[in-house]
C-alpha cells in the first residue's frame, strides 16, 4: 500500500517537474521575443561603430540623430498616410462588401449557398503570386497601376475570401430566432440585415482588424503595383530604408526606423490584441 503511494508521489513529482520545465520553456520563448525587441530599441539609441562591438552595452549616446535620420528616410508621414488610405480603405470596403455577402450566404437559403461559401473559401488558398502578373497587366489596362486606388481595390480583392470566410463563421453563430422574430414582425430583408448587423459587430470588428493587419504587413503588391515615392506604403518604405541603410551601413538608423515603425504598432496591439485574437478564433473555429 505504502509503496504504491510512494510510487504515485514519485510519478506526480516527475509530472510536476516536467510541467515546470515546460512552463519555463514558454517563458524562455516569450522572453526571447521580448529581449529581441528590447535589444532593437536599445540599439536604436546607440552609435554605428559601437553597436556590434559590445552587444549588451547600454546606449552611450542620448542623441536622437538616428531617429531624425530614419524619420527623413522613411518619409513616414507620407508612407503612413498611404498605408492608412490603402489599408483603411481596402479594409473598410472589404467589410462593406463582405458583410452582406457573408450574411446572405449563411442566413438566406438558396440553391448553391454552400458551394458558394466553398467557392469563396477557395480564394484563401490562392497565393498572391498566382494573380499578381495578370492583375498587374489588367490594372495597367485601366490605368490603375501606380495608383493608390488600384492598390486599394487590389487589397479589397485579396482580403475578400478570408473576410467572407471569417464572417460567415460569425453570422452562422448568431441565433436564427432573432432573424425570424424580425421577419414575423414584418421587417424587410434589408431591414432584417440591418437588425442582424449590430449583432455581428464584434465579429466584424475582429475581421476588420485581421484583414487590416494582413494588409498593413503586405508589401509585394505595393512594391509591384506602385512605384512612385509618393505612393509608397509603410512596408515598401521600410524595405527601401532597409536597402539604403545597409548600403550606407547605418545600422542604428535602420534600428531606429524599425522602432519608429513598431511603436504605434505596439501601442495599438496592447490595446487591441484581445479583439484580434478573439476574432480570429471565433472565425476560424466556427
Amino acid at each position, binding site marked *: 500500500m505504502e509503496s504504491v503511494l510512494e510510487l504515485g508521489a514519485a510519478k506526480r513529482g516527475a509530472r510536476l517537474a516536467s510541467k515546470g520545465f515546460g512552463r519555463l520553456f514558454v517563458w524562455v520563448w516569450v522572453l526571447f521575443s521580448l529581449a529581441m525587441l528590447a535589444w532593437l530599441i536599445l540599439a536604436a539609441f546607440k552609435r554605428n561603430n559601437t553597436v556590434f562591438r559590445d552587444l549588451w552595452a547600454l546606449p552611450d549616446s542620448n542623441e536622437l540623430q538616428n531617429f531624425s535620420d530614419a524619420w527623413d528616410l522613411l518619409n513616414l508621414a507620407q508612407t503612413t498616410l498611404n498605408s492608412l488610405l490603402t489599408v483603411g480603405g481596402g479594409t473598410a470596403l472589404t467589410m462593406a462588401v463582405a458583410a452582406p455577402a457573408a450574411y446572405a450566404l449563411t442566413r438566406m437559403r438558396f440553391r448553391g449557398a454552400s458551394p458558394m461559401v466553398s467557392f469563396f473559401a477557395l480564394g484563401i488558398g490562392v497565393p498572391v503570386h498566382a494573380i499578381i502578373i495578370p492583375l498587374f497587366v489588367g490594372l495597367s489596362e485601366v490605368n490603375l497601376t501606380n495608383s493608390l486606388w488600384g492598390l486599394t481595390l487590389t487589397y479589397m480583392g485579396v482580403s475578400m475570401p478570408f473576410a467572407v470566410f471569417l464572417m460567415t463563421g460569425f453570422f452562422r453563430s448568431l441565433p436564427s430566432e432573432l432573424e425570424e422574430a424580425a421577419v414575423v414582425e414584418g421587417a424587410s430583408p434589408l431591414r432584417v440585415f440591418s437588425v442582424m448587423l449590430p449583432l455581428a459587430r464584434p465579429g466584424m470588428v475582429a475581421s*476588420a482588424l485581421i484583414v487590416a493587419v494582413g494588409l498593413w504587413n503586405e508589401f509585394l503588391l505595393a512594391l509591384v503595383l506602385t512605384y512612385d*515615392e509618393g505612393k509608397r506604403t509603410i512596408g515598401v518604405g521600410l524595405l*527601401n530604408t532597409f536597402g539604403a*541603410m545597409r*548600403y550606407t551601413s547605418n545600422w542604428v538608423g535602420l534600428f531606429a526606423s524599425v522602432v519608429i515603425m513598431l511603436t504605434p504598432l505596439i501601442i495599438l496591439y496592447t490595446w487591441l490584441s484581445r479583439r484580434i485574437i478573439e476574432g480570429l478564433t471565433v472565425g476560424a473555429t466556427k
Partner: protein
Amino acid sequence: MINKRDGRRPLWLIFVAALLTLALVAAGCGNDDDSDSGTASVPEATEAPTSDAMEEPMEPTEEPGDDMEEPMEPTEEPRDDMEPDEDNTLRYFSMWNEGEPQQEVLQGIIDSYEEDTGVDVDVLWAGREVLTSVRAALSAGDAVDLIGFEAEPLAGALVNTGETHPLGSLLDHEIPGEDVTVGEVIPESFLDIYAVDGEPHIIPYIVNSSGIHYDARRLAEFGLERPETWDEFIETALAAGDNAVQHDGLINFYNAYWLYWLILRHGGPGSFNAAAADPTGDLWRSDYIRAAVEDLVELVESGALADGYEGSNWPIAQQEWANGNGTFNINGTWLASETASYSSEGFEYRLLPFPTTEGGYESAEVYQIGWVVPEAADSPTAAQEFIAYALNSERLSGMVDVAKNLVPRSDIGVPPELQDAVDMLAASPAGHRPYDGVQGDYPEYWVEFMQLDDQLFFGQIGADEFIDEMAETTSNYWANQ
C-alpha cells in the same frame, strides 16, 4: 455570446470611414496629379527662359531635337501627341536609395538642371530593385524617359531585347557648359560594350571595376609584399593573420567573382561567356576552366578565407575587413565609398588587380553604371539632354569627390582611394564586362551557375563534380531554349 452594448455607432463608423477613405483616396490622387504635372512645372517653364536666358545650356532645350539629325524619327511621334508642359517633364528612375552619396550627387545635378532649363525632373529613387519599378511603369504604359542602373542588368533586361533607344546621335551633342561633345569625353571602348548595330545604348556615368581590396598598412604590419600572381596571393593571405580573406558569402554574385576572374585569367576575356554560350557544354571541360576551378579549390582549401564566410550576410564581412579584422576583400571598386564611414582609423585603401596566372591573360573589368533611354520614352530628346548635362565635368566630379566612384571621363580627377583602380584600368591590355557578360546575357543561366559556383566555393563539391555539373547544366539550358 452577443455583445450587449450599443452596437450601432461603430458599425456606422465603419461605413462612414469607408466613404471618407474613398473620398480621401480620390482627393489624394487628384492632388498628386496636380502637383506633379500642373502647378509645379508650368510657372517654372514660363519663368525659366527669361531668368536663365544667359545660361548656355538653354540653347539645346529651346528647340529640342532640331539641332540633331538622327533622332528626328524617334522623336517625331512623341512630339505630335504631347502636351507642351509634359514635354518639360522628365521621368527618371534611378537605382540609388535616398541617403546614398551617389543619390545626393545626382540630386544636386537634377536640382541645377531643373533650375537651368525649367525642365521638371520627376525622379524615382527606386533602389536596386529599380527594374521592378521600371517594368511596372513600362507595362502600365507609363512612360519612363531615363533609367540609371548597372549596365549588365540593363543590357539583359532591356537593351538585348530592343527596348531601348539608340543613343548614337548623343555622341555629337555638346556638353552644356563645355566645348566638348559627349563622344569626345566618353571613351569608345566603354560605349562599344553594349552597342547594338554600332550604336551605343548605354551611356555610363560611373565606371567601376572589381579587384581585391586591402589595407596597405596592415599588409606592412605583417611585413608582406603586395602579391602579383595567384600563388603569391594565396601565400600572402596565409601569412596575413586570421580571417585574411573576408567575404560575404550570402551574396551569390560576390562568390562568383573568384571563379569568373580565374576563368578570364586562364582563358582570356570572353572565355567565360563562351563557355556559357556553348550549347554542348563541352567547353566547361576545357583546360582553362579546369585550371581556374582548381585554383579556386586551392583557395577554398587553403583556409585563408575567413571563418564563416559562407554564412556572412552582407555587409558584415566588408565591415569587419574595414574594421581591421581581415586583410583582403574581393569586391567592386565602390568598396571604398561603401566602407568609408566605418573603416578603422588610418585605413589605407589599396586595390590589387586580380592576381595573374602563369601563361594567362590580363584584362580589367569595366563595370559601368549608366543611363538608358527606353524605347517607349515620352521625351527621349529631353532625356538625352539631361545625360549630356550631367556629364559636365564639374557636375560629374561629385561622383568622384563625394561618392568616391570612378567616372568614365578621364579628365576628372581621381579620389586617392581609387588611384589603383584607375591605374589598373589604364594598364590593362583589354577590358571585359562584369562576369564576362554572362549575368546580363543569360540571366536564367546565371542563376543556375551561381548555385553550383556556391557549392564549389563553399567546398561542398570538388572540381570534377563541378565541371561535370556545369557541363550538364549548360547543355540542358541550351536544349531548353
